[in-house]
């Protein structure tokens, strides 16, 4: 390790000659250093040697990564975010329009309901009206029919009475004729005539 870090330092000083020195130095590297950990026999610790820890290269590569990666990843993420935003916005718009349509339809439903209620009430009313009208009419008809019937009855009674009278009269006449035929001989006739004359004299 010591030789390696010494090499590194000297390398740092002659850095402008890098291309020329690589070959030379490459062969000179104490290769057993490759068996990592040979020099690390101690416990835990920190090693702040810039070159040993490859810190400069790491910082550079992290810097490059952050510099380019930030743009790329940032763009991708921003795109994703805006896509999600757009999707959410679209969905929300759709929800809004759907709820507006729902409200409208609900209003229509309420309207239709009141309309239905109105129609029903109208129907009830007209039914009531029709009912009363029919009732009245029927009652009037009833009265009329009753009157007609009673009239009819009276006239029938009169007719029957008349007929009865006629029949009775006819019968009476017939009976009387019978009686006359049977009971009216010349004596009785004589007597009757005298009686009648007598009553006429008075």
């Amino acid at each position: 390790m010591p030789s390696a870090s010494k090499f590194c330092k000297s390398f740092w000083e002659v850095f402008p000659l890098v291309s020329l020195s690589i070959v030379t130095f490459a062969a000179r590297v104490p290769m057993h250093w490759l068996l990592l950990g040979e020099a690390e026999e101690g416990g835990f610790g920190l090693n702040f040697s810039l070159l040993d820890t490859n810190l400069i290269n790491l910082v550079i590569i992290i810097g490059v990564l952050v510099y380019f990666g930030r743009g790329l990843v940032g763009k991708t993420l921003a795109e994703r975010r805006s896509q999600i935003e757009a999707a959410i916005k679209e969905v929300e718009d759709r929800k809004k329009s759907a709820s507006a349509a729902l409200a409208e339809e609900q209003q229509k439903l309420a309207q239709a309901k009141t309309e239905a209620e109105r129609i029903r009430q109208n129907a009830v009313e007209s039914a009531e009206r029709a009912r009363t009208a029919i009732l009245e009419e029927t009652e009037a008809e009833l009265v009329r029919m009753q009157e007609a019937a009673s009239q009819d009855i009276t006239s029938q009674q009169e007719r029957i009475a008349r007929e009865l009278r006629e029949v009775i009269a006819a019968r009476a006449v017939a009976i009387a004729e019978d009686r006359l035929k049977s009971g009216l001989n010349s004596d009785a006739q004589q007597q009757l005539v005298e009686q009648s004359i007598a009553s006429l004299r008075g």
Partner: protein
Amino acid sequence: MYLAEPLNYLSHIHHLPIAELEVGKHFYWQIGNLKLHGQVFLTSWFVIGVLIIAAFLASRRSDRIPSGIQNFMEYALEFIRDLARGQIGEKEYRPWVPFVGTLFLFIFVSNWSGALVPWKLVEIPGGELAAPTSDINTTVALALLTSLAYFYAGFRKKGLGYFGNYVQPVPFMLPFKIIEDFTKPLSLSFRLFGNILADELVVAVLVLLVPLFVPLPVMALGLFTSAIQALIFATLAAAYIGEAMEDHGEGHEEH
């Protein structure tokens, strides 16, 4: 003369016992008879912590229109979900999103932590901190979990009928299918481990040779391959799970 030294070094390697060919020493924790690679645990905990904190921050205050970290994590989740859906299929993918997502996120953050976090700032008693996935034990664990997962998926979906998969489309395939069960975790673990370790070694060697600026392209390439490896592992895991659940009976038209 200069050339001789590396060659000597190479011959030196061959004399070492096999275990020493593992790169670096390990910071061993002894638990019972087990020797644990402590540095892997430390970095794994770091990665797990990062993920948990990110998940916590992202879900702490969830807005309807996501911003900041919530937006970012949702984007990651969408990515994982699409990946799982693509490999497993619309019908079955849902329960497997957490598994595939955990694999992807853990491997991805592990790989990138190895490439971006200056672990060498911290010295530990043995070995050094690096990406957890550069240790074969981690990747083998992940690969075996994947194997368990696809067996579980297959048996849950089809019961013993899962073994029918082994003779599809022709019974001739049986030995190959059996071999596949062993090669799948093998290839998964070695691919990931090899790539990440190679990455870190290349960077380490280059840093050793030329400490400044020259390793930068390799490091950038490392970032790229690290991400790709995470993607490959997650995609393959999802593909294996999807394959285990695939319908062979009458489902051919859906392919």
